[in-house]
């Protein structure tokens, strides 16, 4: 039950929705699936004067473009992404990432675009009942940060907990964004600002229309893992996603993208580990070194009861398995899987 009255706009197209957002400015919020916005409104974390609902718009089915890329409507429900034959065959990492988000009813409501554009969370922001008689924090316009009291004003260490964003960044996906000036393209990676105060690099009237995942190169391999306590209906302690390609007819890695989500204000790439892997043999030793490098270079924020050192150790162990999976897939065609370090 939302305890205040707000206005409602139901546009008949995304262009109309963008025009509403432009006219209403910061007092309006966009609702696609509503699974992020409405709980936040219920606890008064968000108090938009107007909700612009995309409830009247239905997503186009995912399509394969002439260049082999897969185009997915941003309004595609996560369950539809996870169950789509085309996506399961062409982008299995995204199908897996979509299938581990939240719970079954939420996956049927929430959209892929909304999963990318969700707000960041922290225990204070999202446990309003414990803090309801206390002044607002920086993110809500106040002058205090409860979990990190030494943070200077304007620094919010809330965490972006999307499960699909790391997978899409590893796959080097791009998004089509519509706004007042027509449409523009951006990489999913550049969508995130890295600021907990305003996690997205989107203007007030901009809306993500579609996500395009490029066709994989030859000898491509992927690995994905959401590290979580129960395995259902929860946020990840971290979300690990790896996409790599093996060099032709060898056991070496040509290039790798390692993305860790749910540890910072944005999904982060482990650039040093990526460089370490490029050109190196995909054997147990390299993978152990790369995993240690990932754990060393990331700087996780404690969140949802996970401490900084727990998250770091957890990632060091599990990213090695994810890298092994990706390497096996990339080398798989040769039938020379490295099983040595499986334990």
């Amino acid at each position, binding site marked *: 039950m939302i305890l205040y009255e707000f206005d409602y706009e139901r546009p008949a197209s995304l262009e109309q929705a963008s025009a509403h957002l432009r006219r209403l400015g910061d007092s309006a919020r966009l609702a696609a699936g509503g699974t992020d916005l409405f709980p936040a409104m219920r606890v008064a974390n968000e108090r938009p*004067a107007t909700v612009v609902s995309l409830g009247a718009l239905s997503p186009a089915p995912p399509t394969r473009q002439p260049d082999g890329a897969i185009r997915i409507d941003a309004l595609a429900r996560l369950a539809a992404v996870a169950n789509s034959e085309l996506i399961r065959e062409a982008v299995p990492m995204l199908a897996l990432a979509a299938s581990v988000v939240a719970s079954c009813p939420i996956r049927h409501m929430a959209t892929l675009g909304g999963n990318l554009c969700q707000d960041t969370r922290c225990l204070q922001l999202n446990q309003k009942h414990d803090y309801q008689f206390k002044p607002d924090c920086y993110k809500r316009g106040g002058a205090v940060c409860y979990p990190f009291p030494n943070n200077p004003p304007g620094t919010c260490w809330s965490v972006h907990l999307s499960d699909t964003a790391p997978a899409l960044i590893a796959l080097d996906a791009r998004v089509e964004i519509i706004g007042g000036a027509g449409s523009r393209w951006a990489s999913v990676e550049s969508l995130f600002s890295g600021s907990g105060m305003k996690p997205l690099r989107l203007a007030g009237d901009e809306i993500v229309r579609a996500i395009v995942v490029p066709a994989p190169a030859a000898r491509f391999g992927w690995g994905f893992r959401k590290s979580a306590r129960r395995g259902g209906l929860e946020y990840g302690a971290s979300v690990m996603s790896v996409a790599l390609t093996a060099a032709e007819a060898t056991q070496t890695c040509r290039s790798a993208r390692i993305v860790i989500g749910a540890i910072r204000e944005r999904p982060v790439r482990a650039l040093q580990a990526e460089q370490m892997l490029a050109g190196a043999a995909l054997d147990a030793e390299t993978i152990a070194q790369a995993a240690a490098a990932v754990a060393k270079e990331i700087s996780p924020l404690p969140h949802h009861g996970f401490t900084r050192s727990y998250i770091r150790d957890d990632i060091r162990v599990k990213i090695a398995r994810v890298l092994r999976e990706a390497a096996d897939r990339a080398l798989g065609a040769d039938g020379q899987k490295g099983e040595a370090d499986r334990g």
Partner: protein
Amino acid sequence: MDNALRIKGTRSQVVEICVNDEWHEVSVRPRHMLVEVLREMIGLTGTKDGCEQGACGACTVLIEGAPALSCMTLAVDCEGKHVRTVEGLAPDGRVSPIQQAFLDQGAVQCGFCTPGMLMSITSLLERNPRPTVPEIKKALDGNLCRCTGYNAIVDAVLQASGQGVEPLMK
């Protein structure tokens, strides 16, 4: 079709929602969630209002056949849509096979989660008539039950889908 709509927060709008194959005209404000309309305006109190933040699944209904959390769905967004609630499983007062399986397996204790469980399972069995145990658990990952420990519920789904689990209670 231009189905754009604008409502002021302090005004009501009459919307038509088809609940269990019966069309209802309800006068709602933008802030009204579907669960409030079902329970307080239409009078179908089978759907439960639990956590209101998507954690418990007690309010699960089927909107156009897909499970949805009615506490996080605006009622105005449901205009012209078909909603099924737990009452729709037993239209003539006779329990459906999945409800009978819940009774047979003792899968109901306090009963607060049961309507949401039944709707999630109904949706699962419509998509997948013979689900495996992992598939059942995946489909029920959004429905919390604090009494039964879930095993009886999984057994009830196996019984209802004819997969070799005999009724525990006859």
